[in-house]
């Protein structure tokens, strides 16, 4: 990615180290008993994936999920029925790994190698095709059959065929499939090699990766490279690393990329509750987000509302969401809360690479602002946004976000906003709609859009571009009010949208709104 590695903007790829759901590793205790044996077994299996060419993972459907899985499983073979997508897939993965045909057609599946397949994954976007494909896979006696389903009520039909149905948004889906395929807590993560990282120029043979980790692939620009010993790493390469266990992944990624990736992209969600009514919106939205993102919930309540903590704690522990709570005096609640968040922020600093690496987010309920409260500046949300360097999420819907609206303009922090938006999209598997005002179509904004699209390709996030003519503020209002978006991402310092409208969206917007500092 030559054009993006100037070091000015954090690359979204830096931000993410995809770590699959811990919950899948239920047999944690069993593995801990005989660690050594497990380790050698895992290493052997990992080598299987890399070195033994046959026994493909057969993937039906080359859409977003299919492509992401192809990237993660070098033995993956994809069957895609849409001739329009074939060329693109062949470019990305090589003609040998891509087959044109229908997943419901046995002949096509035989050609793709169903006879020798070790695992079978049906991820087309229709349940019917997936069901037919799964039936064929069962007939061929493939030991591992996984199907993505749109409609959770279809699950029993799939179970009856011996398949494991997965009904979840995109990233969760990919992570769960990854986990199901690698039950020994094996995890995969990606990172971008920093400029000046000690590994730049090193041959892969000399990389000396820790035991139990494997460099699976390198994405250089748009080319996916299978790592050969003689290959030299370059700055900007997106490396995918497979590790036997979660604990080894991040240090290894850190070593290879020269970037500190020791934090999750979405680390902690702060929820300040000023009245009990907020519990239903702010806390719940944070809770859902934390579940998806493996993040911690930090609840702050003023004295008098202590009883909320118990309820929240119960909910979190039931769903194994890490939870913390603090009680602050009601009178100085805001100031204490802001100070707390900033203090935590400083202790979380890891090697000066904080910016763009992860983000912590404050989740609040919407507050209607009276004219008077605005004049005297007492609006809680407003003061939070001004007082903190953190994104503030105004919670309005409890569902995972399907479609995120983002305005692309030439403001200085737009790149960071793009990175954060991708983080969220990854968590929920959302689509991103990038609103680009005609008046902002300068070089900077165009770069950013390209960058967003490329990041979308790497992570399998669909990015829709919407060029709009006329006044950016008015066009933005039109989009916001269209109701097509579950999350609106706004930059408090946006150049193209006036502050008053940002406030209005915060106050009256139809859906959740993320305000970036």
């Amino acid at each position: 990615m030559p054009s993006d590695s100037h070091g000015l903007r954090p690359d979204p790829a830096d931000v993410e180290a995809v770590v699959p759901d811990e919950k899948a590793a239920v047999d944690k205790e069993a593995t801990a008993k005989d660690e050594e044996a497990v380790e050698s077994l895992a290493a052997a299996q990992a080598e299987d994936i890399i070195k033994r060419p046959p026994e493909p993972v057969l993937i039906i459907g080359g859409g977003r999920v299919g492509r992401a899985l192809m990237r993660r499983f070098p033995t993956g073979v994809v069957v895609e029925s849409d001739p329009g997508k074939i060329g693109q897939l062949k470019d990305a993965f090589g003609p040998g790994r891509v087959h044109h045909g229908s997943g419901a057609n046995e002949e096509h599946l035989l050609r793709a190698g169903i006879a020798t397949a070790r695992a079978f994954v049906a991820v087309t976007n229709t349940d019917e095709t997936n069901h037919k494909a799964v039936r064929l896979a069962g007939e061929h006696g493939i030991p591992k059959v996984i199907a993505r389903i749109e409609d959770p009520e279809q699950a029993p039909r799939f179970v009856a065929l011996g398949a494991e149905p997965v009904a979840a948004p995109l990233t969760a889906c990919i992570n769960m499939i990854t986990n199901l395929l690698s039950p020994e807590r094996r995890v995969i993560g990606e990172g971008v090699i920093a400029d000046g990282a000690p590994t730049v120029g090193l041959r892969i043979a000399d990389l000396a990766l820790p035991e139990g980790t494997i460099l699976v692939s390198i994405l250089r620009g748009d080319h996916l490279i299978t790592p050969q010993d003689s290959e030299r790493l370059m700055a900007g390469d997106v490396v995918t690393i497979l590790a036997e266990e979660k604990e080894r992944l991040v240090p290894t990624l850190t070593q290879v990329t020269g970037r500190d990736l020791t934090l999750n992209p979405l680390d902690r969600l702060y929820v300040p509750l000023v009245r009990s009514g907020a519990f239903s919106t702010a806390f719940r939205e944070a809770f859902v987000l934390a579940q998806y993102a493996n993040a911690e919930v930090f609840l702050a309540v003023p004295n008098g509302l202590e009883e909320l903590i118990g309820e929240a704690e119960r909910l979190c522990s039931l769903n194994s969401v890490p939870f913390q709570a603090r009680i602050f005096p009601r009178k100085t609640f805001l100031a204490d809360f802001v100070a707390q968040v900033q203090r935590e922020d400083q202790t979380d600093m890891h090697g000066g690479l904080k910016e763009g690496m992860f983000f912590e987010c404050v989740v609040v309920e919407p507050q209607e602002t009276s004219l008077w409260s605005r004049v005297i500046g007492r609006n809680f949300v407003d003061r939070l946004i001004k007082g903190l360097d953190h994104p503030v999420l105004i919670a309005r819907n409890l569902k995972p976000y399907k479609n995120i609206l983002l305005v692309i303009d030439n403001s200085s922090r737009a790149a960071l906003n793009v990175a954060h938006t991708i983080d969220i999209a990854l968590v929920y598997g959302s689509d991103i709609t990038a609103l680009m005002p005609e008046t902002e179509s300068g070089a900077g904004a165009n770069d950013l859009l390209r960058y967003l699209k490329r990041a979308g390709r790497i992570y399998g996030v669909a990015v829709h571009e919407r060029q709009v003519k006329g006044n950016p503020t008015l066009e933005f209002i039109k989009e916001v009010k269209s109701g097509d978006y579950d999350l609106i991402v706004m930059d408090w310092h946006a150049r193209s949208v006036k502050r008053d409208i940002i406030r209005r969206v915060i106050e009256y917007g139809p859906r959740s709104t993320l305000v970036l500092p």
Partner: protein
Amino acid sequence: MSEFLALVVVSLLAFISPMIARRMRVPVVVGEILLGMLVGFTVFLAHHFQGRDLLPTGPELAFLAEIGFIILLFLAGLEIDFNNIEDRGLGPIGTGLAVFAVTLGIAYFTVRAFGFGFLSALVLSTTSVGIVVPTLRELALSRTGFGQDLLMTALVADFGTMLLLTVYSLSPDVDLTDLGSLPWLEYAFIPAFFGVYYVVYRFGGMLMWHQPHALSRLFKSEDPMERGVRASLALMFGFVVLSEALRIEAILGAFLAGTLISLLFRQASLLQEKLYGLGYGFFVPIFFIHLGLDFRFAAFAEREALLLVPGLVVVGFGLKILPSLLWAPRYGLRRAVAMGGLNSSRLTLMIAAATIGRDLGILDDTLYSAVIVLAIATSTLGPVLFRVLMKDDVLSAPPTPEPKEVPRAE
């Protein structure tokens, strides 16, 4: 003779002035005034020696020039970035106010020593945002904290003088010892005017939120009816008439109408460009050229007027540079002086103030003409001084061409 003759001459001058200004390396505005003066001088000589009126200018030209002036201030209001002001908080505004107050104070005592009144002090305290903005953009400093603070200082001075000018012209010969004689009702009109402004602003905000589809038509480039331009002009003249009805300076009304559009629509770039086309393409040059044409050469027949100018220029720069030293703790002496130098550029507002003074009979033709010369001198020398002093800062940041440059100097 046809009244269009004057218009032909003026539009020809408007056409050639940018080229000549570029040759002479002066702001285009200055070029226009100088060209206007040149023609005016010819007319003056012909009239003086031959008794012939070469270029009869009727009230039509003056009226067009006045519209030009109103549009100029309207466009200046359009330039203001309110998000930026809010982000930077009250600190820069406070320092800007302090700078302005000190300037006005020094100016008052200086002019009183020469036997002039408050209005003259106000005339000397003005600053031209219209020169400050393009100069900062040219040197790629407009986005820096320094640039924004400098702009804020200029804005405060601009707005402050406009407001004070309004208050002053309501009661030029006020007796501060007799409070009952003050025109309180007229004073009350000023907050009332701002009240109207606020109501229109709130209403506009609501309209945007509830009717974005209807409003967005105003900003479409393909609208053959140019409804956006029509709406803007209606708003502008509405405010002008309202301000005149409330005995407030028309230029203040126009300026506020501009800020209203900038506040409401944030980036009205396309509409802004169309308004620029209309304003800078036709009306604004008429204003500046008319200013030159209207120059009272007769006044300079007396030597004292000529002698007045160098003194005025020195006072003009001193008045701005001294108070700007308030910025020195933050930016150092050299940059603070540079700020004062650039803020010494005075043009439209000073001429407006002087025009009001002349209409009220406070400034005579000699002083009025000297003020125009002062405007030309400061608006040429100010940016030059700034450039020289800021040379080191600018070298580190290569001037990047702005994609959307303000089309003209003022």
